[in-house]
């Protein structure tokens, strides 16, 4: 009874612990509930119409109907097929639908008309959704308006841009970001607060080093551990998951840049959150909530296109989203810097904003 009493007294006197114990399961319920199994929407399909005949008008009307109702995808018109493929590789669109030059004539002549769907198959959830919709669309298109004299209809030819991506490879990007986050949480959160509570920071504060040097010291020490974790996991993870040619020099160089930028973003976020905290229970209490809230909506385990609007709003400001996207681009598509430039810019600006606020809030006194 005494042990029960002691533990309950401590529990009810620790608001951080109470909040974490009660809120964490709720956050997990809501986030995980909406993070998996939602209907994938708002994909972007580039349409290269090289025909321009009457039959393509009917196809475009059907695309428009899907965009207006099921909203699985919207179309982006392309004149140049090479530009469409380039955008597909850079991740700006999810697939390219190519209507060949003699499509209308082949339809009318019933001469095995074909359209081609070229997919970014690095996300199996997205490709399944697209293939399902387009197969249905072609079936609907082939429904006879009048009884045909000779049987025959349009067929969909699916072309995958990349080799098959197993789920372990799909998850790898999220795992690397998670390892960086855990290191940031331990180095920038738990150890930082524990050292502060034990009085170690008092020793630093009486030395003549500047506020900026102190903050940079705390940040870079945490970031260096996060970078190390990111490097180890991206190398071992890539080998384990079977990423093709994982040690290619150019890709490794780009990975290092993404690891450094992601580590700085996550550690600066942690530092801002912890800059005024002195209770060692707080970082431990928020660890789970923060992990769920940032990791699952990031697109690490399921495509963002399937999320409800409120969760998409989280993804916009969630640094995980950009880090995961950058790692996926490098691991699964082996893209260059252009494809991940948006992610790098966001993460850098995010770091600057976090560090600015952390510096403003950091106290050079006790």
């Amino acid at each position, binding site marked *: 009874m005494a042990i029960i009493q002691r533990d309950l007294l401590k529990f009810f006197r620790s608001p951080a612990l109470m909040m974490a114990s009660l809120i964490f399961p709720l956050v997990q319920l809501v986030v995980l509930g909406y993070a998996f199994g939602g209907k994938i929407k708002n994909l972007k399909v580039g349409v290269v119409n090289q025909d321009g005949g009457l039959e393509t008008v009917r196809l475009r009307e059907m695309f428009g109907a899907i965009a207006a109702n099921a909203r699985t995808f919207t179309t982006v018109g392309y004149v140049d097929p090479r530009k469409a493929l380039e955008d597909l590789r850079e991740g700006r669109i999810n697939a390219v639908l190519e209507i060949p030059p003699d499509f209308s004539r082949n339809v009318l002549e019933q001469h095995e008309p074909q359209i081609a769907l070229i997919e970014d198959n690095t996300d199996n959830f997205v490709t399944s959704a697209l293939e399902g919709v387009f197969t249905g669309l072609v079936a609907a298109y082939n429904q006879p308006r009048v009884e045909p004299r000779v049987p025959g209809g349009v067929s969909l030819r699916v072309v995958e841009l990349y080799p098959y991506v197993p789920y372990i490879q799909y998850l790898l990007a999220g795992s690397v970001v998670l390892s960086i986050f855990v290191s940031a949480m331990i180095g920038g959160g738990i150890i930082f607060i*524990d050292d*502060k*509570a*034990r*009085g*170690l920071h*008092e*020793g*630093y*504060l*009486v*030395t*003549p*080093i*500047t506020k900026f040097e102190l903050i940079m010291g705390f940040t870079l020490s945490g970031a260096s551990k996060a970078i190390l974790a990111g490097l180890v996991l991206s190398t071992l993870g890539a080998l384990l998951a079977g990423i093709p040619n994982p040690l290619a020099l150019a890709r490794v160089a780009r990975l290092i840049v993404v690891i450094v930028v992601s580590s700085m973003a996550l550690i600066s976020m942690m530092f801002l959150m912890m800059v005024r905290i*002195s*209770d*060692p*229970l707080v970082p431990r209490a928020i660890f789970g909530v923060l992990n769920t809230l940032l990791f699952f909506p990031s697109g690490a385990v399921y495509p963002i296109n399937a999320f409800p609007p409120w969760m998409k709003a989280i993804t916009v400001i969630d640094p995980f989203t950009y880090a995961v996207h950058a790692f996926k681009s490098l691991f699964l598509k082996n893209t260059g810097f252009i494809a991940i430039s948006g992610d790098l810019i966001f993460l850098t600006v995010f770091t600057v904003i976090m560090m600015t606020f952390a510096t403003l809030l950091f106290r*050079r*006194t*006790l």
Partner: protein
Amino acid sequence: MAAVEVEKLTKRFNGFTAVDSLTFRVEEGEIFGLLGPNGAGKSTLIRMLTTLLPPTEGTALVNGYDVFRQQNEVRNCIGVIPQAMTSDLDLSAEENLNIFAKLYGVPRNRRAQVIRELLQAVELEKWANHPVKHLSGGMRRRLEIARGLVHEPKIFFLDEPTTGLDPTSRIAVWEMLVRIKKQRELTILLTTHYMDEADRLCDRIAIVDHGKLVAIDSPMKLKASIPAASFLEVSFSAIPTGWLETLKSLPEVASVTVHDHIFRIASHNGPRTTIELVEAARRAGIEVSSLSVQSTTLDDVFMHYTGRQLRDELQEKTYETSLMPPR
């Protein structure tokens, strides 16, 4: 120029006055002690003087620099040993010193020599490469003293440097502080609630109570400043009616208090009062059960100036001040 010059220094926390308009000077080269019970405001005062807390009112100059406006200049010339032991337990003694040498900007080519000299000074050279967690409390405190001296400061602040140490370690720390002070021409300002520590170590003492300065002088002069020179604690086989008044009327007696049948007699002349006391007991037909005569201590000084005993204050307020939650 005084090493430390404090003028009406005040610190308030949400209406509570922790340090109340303190004014004093610490001269160069002296060991100056702030003596008082827990919660008297000693640590708050030291934190203000070491730039860790901004004062609410008043001024303080350390080595001629204003602690509020010239913080970096102050930090450059002071060494600080906080109350809690803050060396990194997983690092070795040498590694701890090396990190602080870097923080204080000790040039790379001097670091090794400075660290070696300091480890010798605190008699830890054999333990240089051992993790701090394997060192005893006294050794850790000596390491912290070395850490505070790594940049050769002029003024050394120590917040309760021997709290938690066993008597042997305490004496070792005292001897080391005196030796280092002489070798390095340091001014030392320390806080303590140990009367013997203040008595043996300090050239001058400021007694602080409830944030206020109640007395300041050398230990000898403080003891001489109270009316009694000796204290007798005596108990009797029986206590006749009017016995307290009888004792008060004895020659050289300044005051008499009684607690739990034990009489505490403050006397200007211990030996004479003792003789008169024994004679009075014989006349009253009672026996002296126990008798002890003590010289004036700083506790008596504290009691004289505050009306309370320092040891009682300490017993009432022995709580852990660490921010780490109790396990």
